[in-house]
């Protein structure tokens, strides 16, 4: 048996899919080939290690946003007895952060409206399509206002404690922010030139989303740093 064939058998052997004559042939090859033996050993380690990898867990805010998005899109009437009582937003303590959270959630709600509006525009007859497009444009305008509000609030929350960030992270934040702001400016110019161009507006909203995500990440890091510092003080 050549090594190339042996490699194929090795991968199947690692998965427990090799038996009988083929397994015996592989055994004979392995007895005389150190490289293939090393490959088998490494692949066993890799596959064993892969099954042991930790599962990353999404935070609770994801389901809250999905639920809010479904409610905003009014996808279906809810079944009796199930309430949609709002839970505390984002679990944030400080008023500025809470407000930022509310603004960010508003973006999600309005964006869901945009998605639905776009779909209406695509699916309808020509007359409905016009209505759908106007609705979508109106929703995009609304979404942009909410994005700007969310960014303003997140920015205020962030700037108040920007000094808490590690200098390397702060520098990286500024660099990313410059790229996103340049993208937003370019998209805005495109929208101003062609106000009815849905694609340009979507790119603009996408750039706003990037900015919200960046600010959100920075706030998370600030919160983590504060918690770490708090623990340090307790130990001292």
């Amino acid at each position, binding site marked *: 048996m050549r090594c190339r064939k042996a*490699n*194929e058998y090795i*991968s199947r052997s690692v998965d427990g899919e090799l038996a009988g004559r083929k397994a015996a042939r592989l055994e004979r090859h392995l007895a005389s080939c150190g490289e293939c033996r090393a*490959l088998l050993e*490494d*692949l066993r*380690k*890799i*596959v064993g*290690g*892969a*099954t*042991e*990898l*930790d*599962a*990353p*867990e*999404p*935070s609770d805010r*994801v*389901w809250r*946003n*999905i*639920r809010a*998005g*479904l409610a905003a*899109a009014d*996808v*279906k*009437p*809810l*079944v009796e007895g*199930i309430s*949609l009582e709002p839970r505390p937003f984002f679990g944030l303590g400080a008023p500025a952060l809470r407000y930022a959270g509310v603004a960010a959630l508003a973006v*999600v709600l309005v964006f*869901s409206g945009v*998605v*639905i509006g776009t779909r209406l525009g695509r699916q309808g007859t020509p007359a409905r399509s016009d209505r759908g497009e106007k609705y979508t444009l109106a929703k995009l305008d609304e979404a942009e206002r909410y994005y700007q509000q969310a960014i303003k609030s997140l920015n205020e929350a962030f700037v108040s404690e920007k000094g808490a960030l*590690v200098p*390397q*992270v702060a520098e*990286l*934040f500024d*660099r*990313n922010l410059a*790229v*996103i702001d340049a*993208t937003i400016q370019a998209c805005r110019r495109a929208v101003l030139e062609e106000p009815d161009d849905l694609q340009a507006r979507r790119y603009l909203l*996408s750039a706003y*989303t*990037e900015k919200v*995500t*960046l600010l*959100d*990440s*920075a706030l*998370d*890091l600030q919160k*983590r740093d504060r918690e770490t510092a708090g623990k340090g003080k307790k130990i001292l």
Partner: protein
Amino acid sequence: MERTSPERPVWGTADKARLAELVERGRAGDLAATEALYEMFKRPVFGLIYRHAQNQAVAEDLLQDVFLKIFTHLREVRDAGTFPGWVFRIALNTSYSYLRQKKAQGDKLVPLDDLGGNIEDRATEAVEKDLRGPLEQAIRTLAPRLRSVFVLHDVQGFKHEEIARTLGCAVGTSKSQLFKARIKVREYLRVKKAV
């Protein structure tokens, strides 16, 4: 980031009757059923998305997009048996779409978590002697398609038949891509002297 025990497959082990019931109730607009579906699938779907996005906040946003798409189109699901494959297909398409968008931006943006993570990694390097850290790094270096097959098969325990259905390819293609992915992971780990 919150992390728990290793990922477990949903597909093969899910209670099919329960899944069918939840999909049916979800289609009828039962919010509790949609939440139960989300709980059932969130970890493996997030595990897959996270390994493409490589950033917790971005992965959470993508997860949200995925489930909004799923629940707004739930009425289109005719057979609950196809539901898991459909869910993972949407997750992969959303991940690939994000990667294309990211590439279009020329990778100018570096997620802040990346730097934060690196700083933390350096602090814990001395105590982290197992394969998990280098293996996660090796997975990041894989091309998206190879990464998907490796994560679905070796990390999440999917069968080649299930992967082939999700990716829309032949079973043989899934097997050969897994082999390529493993070889590339091994090359990376050897360079890092982790195996």
